[in-house]
């Protein structure tokens, strides 16, 4: 191992290649850092802040921080996981996340992280916002109740599909995903289920139609194995 290109996470040395972020290098070494808005191959944008680590005593997003030799990083600590759980709780109360009625349940990264970080309750008062459900597309439906504005669909549509179908509109609390079509409906865009944007959503906001609950409970992605033990799956996803 080249000791020059090594940093320390929770006491263990992690090798990295110059230009890699802390999250990329950690995932490659099968060290799990909780994250929602990072997807291999897409440009990290530090939206969700779930991957917050303590690097030489300062908090930073692991997905946007370049790995540097000799950095001392705290990741899986009670203090950081408390903060991450708090952020998850805020994400849950800001939207309408009804897991028992969601086809993504069991395969949902938001839910898997809530299991991982033992989020027993959303704690805060719920917003119960009124959000749009768009069923205009023949192949996909869009349920904004579940959207966490991570921006992955925006990036995938712009950078991979070159279609610019999804756009983040508004600022702060008012930011939300809109569709770039004359009517604002997905059915009026040239979106297709073979687009990359159709498969990057970490929650159940973009789902295929005509499929339903295709995998039985007990056999879904996160039913038996915690997300922290699925680094192989997380790092081999392709944009």
């Amino acid at each position, binding site marked *: 191992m080249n000791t020059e290109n090594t940093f320390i996470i929770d006491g263990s040395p992690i090798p990295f290649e110059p230009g890699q972020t802390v999250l990329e290098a950690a995932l490659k070494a099968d060290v799990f850092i909780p994250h929602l808005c990072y997807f291999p191959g897409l440009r990290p944008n530090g939206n969700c802040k779930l991957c917050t680590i303590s690097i030489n005593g300062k908090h930073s997003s692991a997905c946007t921080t370049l790995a540097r030799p000799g950095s001392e990083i705290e990741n899986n600590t009670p203090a950081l996981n408390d903060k991450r759980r708090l952020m998850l709780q805020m994400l*849950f109360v800001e939207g*309408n*996340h*009804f*897991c*028992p*009625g*969601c086809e993504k*349940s*069991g395969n949902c990264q938001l*839910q898997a992280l*809530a*299991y991982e970080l*033992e989020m*027993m*309750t*959303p*704690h805060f*008062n*719920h917003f*119960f*916002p*009124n959000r749009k459900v768009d069923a205009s597309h023949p192949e996909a439906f869009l349920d904004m109740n579940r959207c966490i504005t991570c921006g992955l669909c925006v990036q995938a549509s712009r950078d991979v599909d070159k279609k610019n179908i999804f756009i983040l509109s508004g600022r702060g609390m008012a930011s939300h995903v809109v569709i770039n079509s004359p009517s604002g409906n997905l059915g009026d865009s040239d979106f297709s289920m073979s687009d990359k944007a159709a498969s990057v959503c970490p929650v159940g906001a973009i789902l295929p139609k005509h499929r339903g609950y295709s995998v039985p*409970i007990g056999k879904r992605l996160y*039913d*038996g194995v*915690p997300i922290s033990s699925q680094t192989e799956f997380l790092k081999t996803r392709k944009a």
Partner: protein
Amino acid sequence: MLSPQEPPKRKLRVATTSLSGCFGCHMSLLDLDENLLALVDLVEFDRSPITDIKHCGPCDIGIIEGGVCNSENVHVLREFRENCRTLIALGACAVNGGLPTLRNGLDVREVLREAYFEQPGAVCNTIPNDVELPLLLDKVHPINEVVRVDYFIPGCPPSRDAIFKFLTDLIAGRTPRLDYPQMRFD
């Protein structure tokens, strides 16, 4: 099979109720099967659908299924909080409102109108308003938005193993903690 913990010196008194729930969580409680016998060695029941006692007396543990959707739910929940040293939210509806909160985006008047006037086959032409009927709240709330809640067991419903693990941990004086397969939101 799960093994019962060492019984405490005196039986703990437990009350349970279902507010705006479907009784699925109580079904899951009954699903403890032979472990119910282990549990009955540790606890005795106060107000509960199992005993049919109508009001909650002083208890060690109160278990609430369902969210808060009407005025009666508020009264029952406050009675439980006043009488129970430890209050537990059992299941998705008590923890985050659950599926009944799907009506939260709609106006209550419109919901009632739809149900009693506009549904095909609706035979009454009035919204029931008997004084015996509790009034609907404008929104359905998780119970922690109305009273302080000590513990939460998520799941729709929580599995029997989750309920048994949680209760036996609590009764034995350990910090209750669910194992990964027991931690479910659906």
